[in-house]
């Protein structure tokens, strides 16, 4: 069965690339364009992996991450955080709050694909 991936980002211009990329890899893709929607979809769809942007309207990626990780039912959901801020304090915070991996924009799509693949393989 194809793995499910949720792309949570409010920037359409990145979502379109990510969507194409993930579908091309053969994953089942759904999209959330703000923090609230992301949290809702994670709960209902229980994706295998979430590409989670930090800066989103309504709820930040940090909050969504914390929510997911504190819910025992969602233990299997992997989180890959994407951020447009290069500060290492933020990377540290994301990882401390339970993100499984972290990538800083701009990133190489090849690396992203490899990272996603390896995260899902660990599973």
């Amino acid at each position, binding site marked *: 069965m194809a793995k499910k991936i949720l792309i949570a980002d409010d920037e359409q211009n990145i979502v379109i690339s990510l969507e*194409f990329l993930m579908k*091309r890899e053969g994953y089942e893709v759904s999209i959330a364009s703000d923090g609230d929607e992301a949290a809702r979809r994670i709960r209902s769809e229980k994706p295998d992996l979430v590409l989670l942007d930090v800066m989103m309207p309504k709820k930040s990626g940090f909050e969504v991450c914390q929510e997911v990780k504190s819910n025992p039912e969602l233990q299997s959901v992997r989180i890959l955080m994407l951020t447009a801020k*290069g500060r*290492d304090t933020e990377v540290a915070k994301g990882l*401390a709050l339970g993100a499984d991996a972290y990538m800083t*924009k701009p990133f190489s*799509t090849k690396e992203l694909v490899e990272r996603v693949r390896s995260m899902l393989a660990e599973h």
Partner: protein
Amino acid sequence: MTARARFILAVCILALLMTGPFVLTAGLVWLEAGEADRGRLIDAVVPHLPLGTLMTIAGFAVGMAVVRNLFRQYVRGLLRMEEHLKLMLGANHEFRVKPEGPPEVQALSQAVNALAQQRDELLQDVEAQISQAKHSVEEEKNRLAALMSELTQSVVVCNLDGRILLYNHRARQQFRALSDAPAVAGGGELIGLGRSIYAVFERNLVNHALESIQHRLRRSATQPVANFVTTTRAGQLLRAQMAPVLSVTQGEGGERAITGFILMLDNITRTFETESKRDQMLHTLTEGNRAALANVRAAAEMLEYPDLQEDLRERFRTVIRDEVRAMSTRLDETANEFADSLKARWPLEEMLGADLIAAVQRRIENVVRLPTKLEEVDETLWVKVDSFSLLQALTYLANRLSDEFEVREVRFRLSAAGRLVHLDLIWSGQAMSTETVMSWELEPMRFGDENSPLTVRDVIERHDGEMWLEREKVRHRAFFRILLPAAVPQEQLDEATILKGESRPEYYDFDLFNWSDKSRALDDRLLTELTYTVFDTETTGLNPSQGDEIIQIGATRIVNGKLLRQESFEQLVDPCRYLSPESVQIHGITQDMLKNQPTIEAVLPAFHAFAEDTVLIAHNAAFDMRFLQLKEKATGIRFDQPVLDTLLLSAVIHPNQESHRLEAIAERLNLPILGRHTALGDAIVTAEVFLKMIPLLAAMGIRTLRQAREAAEKSYYARVKY
């Protein structure tokens, strides 16, 4: 026994000596003789008796004359000399005893004169040395003052109570920018000898800096100074470096007590603004473009896939075009004007991490009364912090933990994490929800008597750090982790160069260092050691209750018995009413001069600040105070400090003089009158009069403020009776 009594006794003894042997012999002869011999004796002696008596009287007279002469020369002469000597001892050092009388007395008086001469020479020598020493001290002080006034950095020296002992020209200029009413008071209400520095800096901030200096001194750090940055009421950003003034004498254990501090101030508002603008630009150009670059890069990479459908290919091209266009626009905008949406970097101070934790512990234990403990603290770590606000934030968090989650103890942990440092605030018990943490982070910090406009988030952002809540489920504990920037360790203790002995020469010695606010209640303090604001007002007329208004306030200050002419206050006031020609004749202030002057509502707050913490003095103070009191309601400003009236004090000193007008008093006290009938001119004359009155009052036993007020009250009632 007086000299006179001794003289009479001597005369009596002389009389006894001259008659006694003769009478005794006659008595014995009479007893031995028989009946017949006695008759013969009478016959032989009686006819010669008058002659004998006469001879005895003559001899007695001669003897008395001799005794009297001796008495005059030796006893009286010496008594007179004694009086002269007393004169030489006290009132008239120049007096010399005139050598007279017998040679022995003359020799004595010569010896005394020689001694007196020797004493006078010694005294003169001592006086000359004292005045020379004074002169050189004065010279050094002047040299120091000249040096200070040349400095481009502003310097303020304070005693431990925060009273200003010394400031330079530059500091005065700088305080002008800090004043709430620069046009009216010109910073004179903030800076001045004897004024409190706490009008500018928060007391807690200064105490905190002093504490960290003390800590450094104890640790024998090479540079026991503290740096801090603070915003002032007027919104300026000040960077201060504080250095201690140490006592000359060493206490037990060789430590020298801190008796005051030196502040070197820099107004960095402008530099900070420029720097933060530059920062912003940099930030927009780097961080701001990350997301857009990510979009472009991803889309570009998608285009490389050969299996791409045409419509998707077109969409990716559109993404690239749009994003690149947006980036160009952003670049242009940034170059043109730096957006002010980004937070600026707050200037931070480097500090030993362990010191920071120790300070936090002390504060939490003192303020929140919550016990604290240490877990692993890496002693080698240095952090870059704004220690005052960070301490506030940690104390605030501990306070909320204690209040809302009944936490009984908090612990600290400090560990390195690359270029960052983890500071953990740990407690046992349940963890709160993310929303609670959020609200703690975002509410202004209020606890105890602290009331900061900052939030924990603001403080964290100042440090360019992060903070979050983590749980240690196994140990049933939770902690706040705060990420702080690490600093490169500073070179540490060099035992040999500790501030001891000669390392810091003492150039001068200020009397104000010995001042203490708390030593006595104001009323029981000596008139000589109080700080006064001597003021005078010019008004449109004599009846404030019928609409007369103040048109000028002038004031000067007396600190430590010295009139500080350079620290004066002079301001015209627009009375918002018509000026009668008669009053113009008195004060010479015309309607034109009052145009565009501030109104009393603007001037009174500045004057109030100028007079803060001082005793008010005015001539016929009741009159001026009446005008001020009538404005209480409108301005909300109360002058509730003690007031002294030179008119009443003059009546205390010279109750029998007819006139107690300022001119009359000044004339009596031999003071020249200049510039009368300007408010400042009159205030200065009043101040000079008061300074002359202090010793006169002291001679009447009136030394404290309470005594002066009571005496003035009595004289007032005395005057009212007539």
